[in-house]
């Protein structure tokens, strides 16, 4: 970057913490996580195509303790990016820009993502026991 000596914007350390900052940063962070995760999806499909042994290896990795933690984090990243992505699409259509609703739908994206993640994993883990 050119060293101009002028102040940079946004000047993060003087900003008051706001949920809108978090929802924006999380959207990028979860996007990067999902991009990495898309390689794992390809691994799974390639294993399914390669045969029973390859798929058993994939399944063992996916259902191991580490694999389960990764998949829970991945689920949360996915549902957050989905909810906040829909929020961004609505904003692109000019909706929800008033400060009050902007803050409210920032929280909504975060809360709905957590609820959906809990719902999916309750289904997975309780279904496994039944």
């Amino acid at each position, binding site marked *: 970057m050119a060293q101009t000596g002028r102040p940079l914007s946004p000047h993060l350390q003087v900003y008051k913490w706001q949920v809108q900052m978090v929802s924006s940063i999380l959207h990028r962070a979860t996007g990067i996580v999902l991009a990495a995760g898309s390689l794992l999806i390809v691994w799974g499909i390639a294993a*399914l*195509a390669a045969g029973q042994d390859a798929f058993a290896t994939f399944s063992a990795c996916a259902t191991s303790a580490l694999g389960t933690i990764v998949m829970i984090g991945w689920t949360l990243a996915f549902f957050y990016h989905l909810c906040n992505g829909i929020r961004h699409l609505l904003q692109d259509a000019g909706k929800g820009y008033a400060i009050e609703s902007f803050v409210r739908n920032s929280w909504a994206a975060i809360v709905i993502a957590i609820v959906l993640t809990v719902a*999916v994993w309750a289904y997975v883990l309780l279904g496994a026991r039944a």
Partner: protein
Amino acid sequence: MSNDLRNPLARARGLGSAKEGAGHWMLQRITAVALVFLTLWFVITVLGLMHADYATARGTIAQPWNAVLLIALIVTMFRHAVLGLQVVIEDYVHTRWLEMTALVLIKFIAVLAALAGVLAVLRIALGS
């Protein structure tokens, strides 16, 4: 680079910054809308196969509609991922050669992974 091959009027007629931001922006959103439906279908399909054995899982993906939707998901997902990662790299990597290298690298990886994924679905669907 390609900007230099167009005369100033042609660039101005493209409006905006006379680069390709508008096309990038639009494609990011079109793929996003497609992915809302494709990913939800994928999650529901995977949840349905959670306790299935190998043959059932393979048989499900081999169904023509499932194979088509899965290929659509793979292509759209990597396109959307490259568009998003590109913006992140352009925003945060300020060393020009590192930026260019990263931009080319994510495209190479995405194309290879997408091709591998599509080939895998075709192998499953065609039973080879």
